[in-house]
């Protein structure tokens, strides 16, 4: 065979109103290859793979699958042709069981009993334990992803597409994922892999195609380059190193005292005696595996869930019984992790989304009336300052690429100059360059005297940003340790339950 490629794109182009999302994109994926697709937020990666999966139709260019022309009318046609995909935002049905979810993703699912047996078979072959009868709502992020992957594997795909699958996984889960992918690749499946985690791409991928502004700018062997070099190819220039200078811990801003709270949902985590102190100009990092109370801590601090009197004090004033709006006025702001639906209303324009949290502090609402020009100006200011790639402030939040929306929601809070800012997973799904910019903005904010709490699963991020570090484990917060001189071993201990490190305040 002369052309062994499983998939080949020639001159693919796609335009959205005001954006050329893909332009003259050509590349090929070979069988047995894990092929990385790299690029900044908004570079057009998701758009490209959506075209391969039949969700979006290209304006021009041709695609080939196994040497045959590939023009799927819809995802079912693409699946029939041998393409499977795991989405950037989970595409699962919470109320349905694992088996039902898998059946919905297959073209001709076998009858129930056979399907359950097959699921059991595949989960054993690939070391991905999963109970077919469980409801998806009760699964962790890693388990949910297993559902998506098994759904794909059961179709024996020729080409498997994964759009940022590891952004919500713990490091162990990510390792397991790569072991699975390698097994699939060894079986001859071609894998197209999108991620912003350059280190992981360097260790696991065979080839990388780099997109910038919708065009292919480079193609290389990621193992032969450093992460810095890859990032430079993506942005088309060198990245600025992070500047941590000029900060000083000042007076105590925020005190959380023995904050306990039952789990808000069946799948949630109870907070147990969380105690912390935050000073002006300080960044406190909170690490931990997802599902150990991160969301609950954020909602307790933001005021979405109120706590017992005297548990949350801002500059001496008791905020425990106040709602989010009152806390914002007092200067305590929060940016939750889930950008679509929690931090932003997907169907609202960016302008309208600024009003959700910045109405009072930025004077966008005056005597009960919305000051549209001011809201628009504020949205434009965020777009400019945080380099949000979008046609303008009138765009609906959900039309932004994942990382760009993330920059927008962080920017919306940072630019309000809060006294205290709490962020959860601030760089989830954000490209390397933009992640550096978001982190820099948090450091700059702290330099001006704001106290910042960063909740994150990314240890490197926490070590880079924070002055003190503590771990959240099953709703308990460990005592903080200065980040300087902290070894990864110590952190591992703290995350793993940190016996002896958490007894102090109980």
């Amino acid at each position, binding site marked *: 065979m002369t052309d062994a490629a499983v998939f080949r794109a020639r001159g693919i182009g796609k335009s959205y109103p005001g954006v050329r999302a893909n332009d003259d994109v050509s590349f090929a994926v070979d069988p047995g290859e894990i092929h990385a697709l790299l690029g900044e937020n908004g570079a057009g990666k998701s758009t490209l793979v959506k075209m391969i999966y039949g*969700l979006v139709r290209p304006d021009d260019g041709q695609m080939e699958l196994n040497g045959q022309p590939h023009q799927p009318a819809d995802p079912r046609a693409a*699946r029939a042709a041998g393409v499977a995909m795991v989405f950037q935002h989970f595409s699962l049905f919470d*109320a349905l069981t694992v088996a039902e979810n898998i*059946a919905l993703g297959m073209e001709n*699912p076998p009858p129930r009993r056979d399907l359950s047996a097959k699921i059991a078979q595949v989960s054993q072959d690939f070391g991905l334990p999963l109970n077919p009868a469980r409801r998806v709502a009760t699964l962790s992020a890693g388990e949910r992803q297993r559902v998506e992957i098994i759904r794909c594997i059961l179709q024996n795909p020729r080409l498997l597409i994964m759009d940022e699958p590891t952004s919500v996984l713990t490091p162990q889960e990510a390792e397991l994922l790569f072991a699975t992918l390698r097994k699939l690749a060894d079986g001859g499946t071609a894998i197209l892999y999108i991620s912003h985690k350059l280190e992981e791409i360097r260790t696991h991928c065979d080839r990388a195609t780099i997109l910038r502004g919708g065009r292919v700018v480079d193609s290389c062997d990621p193992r032969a380059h450093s992460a810095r070099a890859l990032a430079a190819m993506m942005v088309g220039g060198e990245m600025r190193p992070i500047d941590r200078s000029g900060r000083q811990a000042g007076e105590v801003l925020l005190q959380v005292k023995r904050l306990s709270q039952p*789990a*808000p949902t069946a799948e949630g985590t109870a907070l147990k005696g969380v105690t912390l102190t935050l000073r002006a100009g300080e960044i406190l990092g909170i690490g931990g595996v997802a599902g150990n109370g991160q969301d609950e801590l954020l909602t307790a601090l933001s005021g979405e869930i109120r706590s017992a009197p005297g548990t949350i004090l801002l500059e001496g004033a008791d905020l425990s019984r106040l709602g989010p709006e009152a806390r914002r006025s007092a200067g305590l702001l929060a940016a939750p992790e889930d950008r679509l639906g929690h931090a932003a209303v997907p*169907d609202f324009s960016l302008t309208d989304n600024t009003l959700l949290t910045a109405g009072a502090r930025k004077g966008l609402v005056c005597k009960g009336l919305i000051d549209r020009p001011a809201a628009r100006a504020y949205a434009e200011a965020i777009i400019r300052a945080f380099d949000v790639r979008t046609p303008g402030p009138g765009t609906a939040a959900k039309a932004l690429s994942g990382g760009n929306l993330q920059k927008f929601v962080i920017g919306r809070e940072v630019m309000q100059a809060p006294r205290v800012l709490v962020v959860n997973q601030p760089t989830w799904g954000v490209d390397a360059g933009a992640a550096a910019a978001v982190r820099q903005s948090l450091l700059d904010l702290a330099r001006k005297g704001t106290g910042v709490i960063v909740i994150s699963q990314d240890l490197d991020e926490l070590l880079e940003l924070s002055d003190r570090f503590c771990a959240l484990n099953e709703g308990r917060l460990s005592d903080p340790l200065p980040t300087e001189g902290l070894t990864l071993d110590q952190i591992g201990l703290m995350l793993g339950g940190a016996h002896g490190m958490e007894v102090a305040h109980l």
Partner: protein
Amino acid sequence: MIDPVALFLLLLSASTPILFAALGELVVERAGVLNLGVEGMMIVGALSGFAAAYHTGNPFLGFAAAAGAGALVALPFAILTQFLMSNQVASGLALTLFGLGLAALFGKPVEGVKAPAMISGPLGLNWIVWLGLLMVPAIWWFLNRSRAGLILRGVGENHDAAHALGYNVRRVRIAAIAFGGAMAGVGGAFISIATVLQWTEGMTAGAGWIALAIVVFSNWTAPGVLAGAWLFGGVTVLQLRLQAAGVRVPVQLLSMAPYLATIIVLVAISARQKLSRRAGGTAPGSLGQDFHALR
């Protein structure tokens, strides 16, 4: 004094209109659409079923016509909510008002005439009663065991995910809305053709609203709908018996009883569900939300 078996057979009849309407709405809501127009579709079914039965002399043709008419009046609602993205609550209310007005206008010619007699099935019960009872396991099977039912639930649970997997959200929802209309139409026709035996304006008397409530009460399950319909039917039959027996309670209070009982049970169950929602709510995830496909 009151024979329990006879009473139960009466209950089966009395609960049939609501059973049909609520089963239809159950399927609609499982597909993620909230159609508040049940009352309107029922009354249109009541009139067109009655008129067709009267003119053809065949009650079964009447029920068929009622199903068709119910589905037909639901279509504007489907177009408004699925293509023009109108608000579902407002469109549903409009459908109820529209149906009530439409039936009142076209009902004039058949006012005062009598429906043709129906041949009863086993146990002296109307065949439509048996059909209604059969629909309960049928719809349960469809929702929980069939591929089409799984897709319908998927669409109702998370329309974005269903779209991403390549299912046609609109088509599924339009089919569900039409089915709901047909079922409501048959339910309404049962009142005019089999119970009252004539046409009067506003004769569905709020049954559509009760059907809507029962769907919530049932926790979106077919057996739950049956239980709810029987509760309402049972209290209806009982209060009629009490009225006939000349119990010294104002008639107005007795007539109120079925509605009141249903509402009280609904409130009690909802309060309990609110607690158990922590264990994972059961309402379809995308219920009442508009679906825009991004292309």
